[in-house]
């Protein structure tokens, strides 16, 4: 009995613990994709995928490098570190071979920009997702 109580306590704690939940990928509501692989995501956030499968240009939105939501997004969804992405972007921008994503200051701005830009992709904490945007799933 003690064991059961202890186990359910631990499980309860896990469920109720303040969710450092994984970020949710968000896209413009007209986006036709429903899931992306980790490789797809890495290529998109490295700015190496200029177009969606339907031909619409990709617009990538990110928070600042040191924003905890960005750091966590890199680690959990891309399995990368913010400095690696920064280096990829810097190499492209300062050699002219590519571009950098659009940096936004807040999650609210992220939601608004993704909702209003066709071809946009970004990420949010689950509690900040609403019906103005579409969520998309990462498959490993």
């Amino acid at each position, binding site marked *: 009995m003690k064991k059961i109580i202890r186990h359910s306590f631990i499980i309860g704690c896990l469920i109720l613990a303040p969710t450092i939940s994984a970020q949710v990928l968000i896209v413009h509501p007209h986006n036709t994709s429903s899931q992306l692989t980790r*490789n*797809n995501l*890495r*290529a998109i956030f*490295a700015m*190496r*995928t*200029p*177009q969606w*499968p339907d*031909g619409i*240009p990709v617009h990538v939105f990110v928070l*600042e*490098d*040191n924003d905890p939501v960005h*750091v966590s997004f890199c680690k959990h969804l*891309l*399995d*990368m*570190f*913010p*400095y*690696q992405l920064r*280096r*990829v972007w*810097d*190499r492209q*921008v*300062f*050699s*002219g*071979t*590519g*571009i*950098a994503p659009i940096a936004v200051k807040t999650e609210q701005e992220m939601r608004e920009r993704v909702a209003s830009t066709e071809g946009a992709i970004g990420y949010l904490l689950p509690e900040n997702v609403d019906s103005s945007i579409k969520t998309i799933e990462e498959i490993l």
Partner: protein
Amino acid sequence: MILYCLKLAVYIRLLHDKNQCFNQIKRLLLLLTLISPVTVLAETNWLDNLQIHGFTSQGLIFTTDNNFYGDSDHGSANMTELGLNASLQLSPKIRLAGQLISRNAGEMDNGSPHLDYALLDINFTSSSKGRFGTYLGRVKNPLGLYNETRDVAHTRQGIFTSQTIYFDKVRNLIISADGAQLYGEYFLPNGTLLIQGGAGYPIPDENVEEAYFGQDFEGELKGDNLAFLGRIMYEHDGGRWIVAASGATLEIDFEGTATDALGPFIPGFGYALSPLLGVNSGKIGIDYTIFSAQYNGEKWQLTGELAYEDIDYTDIGGLFSDVDVKSYGYSVEVNYKFTPKWEAFIRREAFYLDKEDKYGKDFESASQQLNSTYPFIPAIPGHSQYSENWILGSRWLISPRWMARVEYQMNKGAVTLSPSENDIANTTKDWDLFAISLSYRF
């Protein structure tokens, strides 16, 4: 389309001609005319497709002896970098990009702005499996892990790029070329394969002449022969591991004058020593190969690079008769991130100009012999033929845009020093360097 290609050909030709700022602005304007037939912009707000970025950095350098980036022996602030670039997406497949840079680098660069790159990026195909395209115009050379962005403080490993792999004294020769490159990126199950390469005209300058001749002759080095270069890079697991091999092969012509052929007038000898001290028109062939590997962890970053250079002088004569030097250099660095904002590194790097005579012993005795016969020819010490350095450095990311750095170098040898800034015969073998820098980018 034919008209377009013609304009492009004219553009590349012009871009190649001279290196004056005024001409560069004219070339930029010409480049802008290239985009006039493109009307796709009309449909969208073109500002949405424009990205502008830039950077600036100021360094302060102190050396115990020798000069690096100015009169560093007495403290030099002659390390100022400024850059501004723009990228305009003309259509989903076509992008235009350019960057202007001003560098004050002691006697090596006086800060006059120059066109760093100006290119058209045409993407032939792109999908979830990869993309393939071409860069046309003045394109940065993809060499090693850092060559393309060596002027941007934020992207360098330290205050200076590793001088044993990316020699600052000949930077303009290897930094970019006017021509065309193809690129292919392939998204594999566990990584990405990146291939980039092509042909272009190199851009020699006085520093290159000083570096390869030890002096600035009246004649000129010409970048009239196409150089071929490329890099194959594999990024495993999102870039956790990176390996790359890159190379360039180029030939620069030297157009000597009658004065160069005569050599200096030596009292007592007159021009009798012309065959020894004069130089004739000829060419310098350079083959340059770099192997790179890097591990990128959350805290630890390990980097190793190895460079080979083969320099072959043909028909130039004088002291350069039958000179064919094979050089190599390496750089090994361990970097630790104490916090996301603060990191420190230790680097060991070395370069040997002649791998058959690593410490310049034979060179020194030959030079001394020459000096004893002809006292007006300075004896060049053997330590001018190599460099072996220990470097400690740290960087602090004050904000995503501001960065401060500090660096200490313990150097043995002088091969990384520029003859533009130093009388090589009188350089000191053991010298230390301390530098700090503050950089901003947006």
